[in-house]
């Protein structure tokens, strides 16, 4: 399975809340695994379920609403703040998301997402509001993310915005490369650097 991301076209799951922290995305009590798999079932655990048994989903939470589905999560500003737990990115990816759209992302979450081929797309507050309106009007509204062109489009209205991503990370995402491979290829330069400084 290729990890690479190029074009994503999907309906969206709207989470119209600001400051969604990583403790909500994946509560600490689910961080006890020693592998990277299976975190999706506990994604937004305490907002999704009344308790730790799976039989009482909270009907008022968007992930339990069958009207909304897709591989793009759209959320309010400052998404992913708080703890550095990469498990948040693993949980979102495991639950089937490839893109998260917000007007503002917390730093560590953004890095973690990029390292897991979960694309964080930062849009203007106005564009974010337009996505929420479009989805509210019609839950089947499709959003198209074009990574090579660095654009995001609301299909129903045709409104497009471009988004930023550094060219190094873009290349990684388009080709399925990861940072570790890159850094490992630099081993001798790193050793030269170490020898050049006394510490």
């Amino acid at each position, binding site marked *: 399975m290729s990890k690479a991301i190029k074009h994503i076209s999907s309906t969206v799951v709207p989470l*119209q*809340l*600001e*400051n969604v*922290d990583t*403790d*909500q995305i994946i*509560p*600490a*009590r689910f*961080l*006890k*695994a*020693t*592998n*990277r798999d299976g975190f999706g079932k506990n994604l937004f655990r*305490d907002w999704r379920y009344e*308790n730790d048994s799976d039989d009482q989903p909270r009907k008022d939470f968007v992930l339990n609403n069958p009207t909304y589905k897709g591989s793009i999560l759209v959320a*309010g*500003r*400052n998404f992913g*703040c*708080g*703890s*550095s*737990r*990469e*498990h948040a*990115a693993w949980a979102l990816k495991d639950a089937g998301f490839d893109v998260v759209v917000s007007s*503002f992302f*917390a*730093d*560590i979450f953004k*890095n*973690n997402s990029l*390292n*897991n081929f979960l694309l964080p797309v930062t849009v203007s*507050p106005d564009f974010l509001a337009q996505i929420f309106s479009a989805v509210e009007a019609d839950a089947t509204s499709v959003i198209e993310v074009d990574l090579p062109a660095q654009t995001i489009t609301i299909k129903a209205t045709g409104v497009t915005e471009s988004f930023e991503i*550094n*060219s*190094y*990370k873009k290349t990684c995402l388009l080709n399925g490369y*990861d*940072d*570790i491979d*890159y*850094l*490992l290829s*630099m*081993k001798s*330069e*790193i050793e030269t*650097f*170490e020898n050049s*400084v006394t*510490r």
Partner: protein
Amino acid sequence: MAQTLFEKIWNRHVVKTIDGGPSVLYIDRHFIHEVTSPQAFTGLNKRGIKVFRPAQIVATADHNVPTLNQHLPIKEELSRLQVDALIKNCAEHGVELYGLGHPYQGIVHVIGPELGVTQPGMTIVCGDSHTSTHGAFGAIAFGIGTSEVEMVMATQCLLQSKPKLMRINIEGQLKPGVVSKDIVLHIIAQISASGATGFAVEYAGSAIRALSMEARMTICNMSIEMGARCGLIAPDETTFSYLKGKEFAPAGEAWDKALTDWKTLFSDKDAAFDEEIFIKAADIEPMITYGTNPGMGISVNGAVPALNEIPVSEQKGFEKSLAYMGLEAGEHIKGKKVDYVFIGSCTNSRIEDLRQVAAIVKGKQKAADVEVWIVPGSKQVEAQARAEGLDKIFETAGFQLRQPGCSACLGMNEDKIPAGKYCISTSNRNFEGRQGQGARTFLASPLTAAAAAITGVVTDVHDWIHSNEEVNA
């Protein structure tokens, strides 16, 4: 050209800068713990490689360890498996581990500084967002994810984009009863939980210079709660005298050499910052949070904002937050009943914190229906507290002095606050469910928490000290 403190440290750690991309940044020290490292070790093992520079890593078990009976096997199976995996991984890769039972064990951000592993001018990372704590020594220190933990294990480097720079200046003298926790809660309340996202923040000014190392660590610790990549304070005599003689601090000739270098680590007079904030120390009150992010803070004497004081886009979150906390808009928090008091976490579990608490509660007893947990940041802090007789003061007060760990800051072990209960906590996060499912957290200073432990309600520590002085006179 004039440089900032951050730039001086950053520039000497750049191995290479990729065109149109990040820099390859060399990392001097890497702290690891049981929760965010296992997948990184697995990654190395899958690639068939060993840790590149094991001598630059220090490991401890802190996040999910019990705080009672640490000499017994960990009861909770998954926690035990994680701690066992850490022991095995460290042994296989030759990494020094200060695990349970070791006299140096403790919260990773408490032990690094107290052992002198943390030093000025370094780049320091850990798979934990509160790594910003170490910036108090004039280091670039930041939290990373597990993939990045693996990168540092594999190559001692990370790919990082240079953040923007902010300086927060705090000038003047603090009011009595106001401590460093109040300073940082005040800053976050002013600039919001995302106010410094994308920035490295340098704290400066006479009020910062006057603080002890431990108080500075409390401020840098919560840099992440304003979204900052890291927080840092220029090293000075306070820093140097704290470090001198510490286990892993340089000694002899190496100390003199290091000191000469450390003295060059400050922001030059004309260095440029992307943003600068000025705060008068005298304007800072004892603080408390009312909501579910650390930016939702007010003076202990203040009221929860009214709905119309909140920007429209944030109102939904504000109302959700108050519903979770069981509070009303416009309500005063002072006098609110408290069920639990938690004194601990990488923010406020050091010896000075415990001394402050002891000074407030000496000879007094906790309110009858309040449960009070004091969780020291490390075995060394615990031993020091006992040596000073603080344990007796806590015992008389009816407080439980437990064993070191992250404990009820994030409730990964048994130390959870029950649903619906109010906890005044010296930790760093008041997120929904952070201290246990349904738990309601008021973040505050050790002084404010200690006063609440005695009165059983949220108390203005300034009034309280004053009235107790009269009684004692």
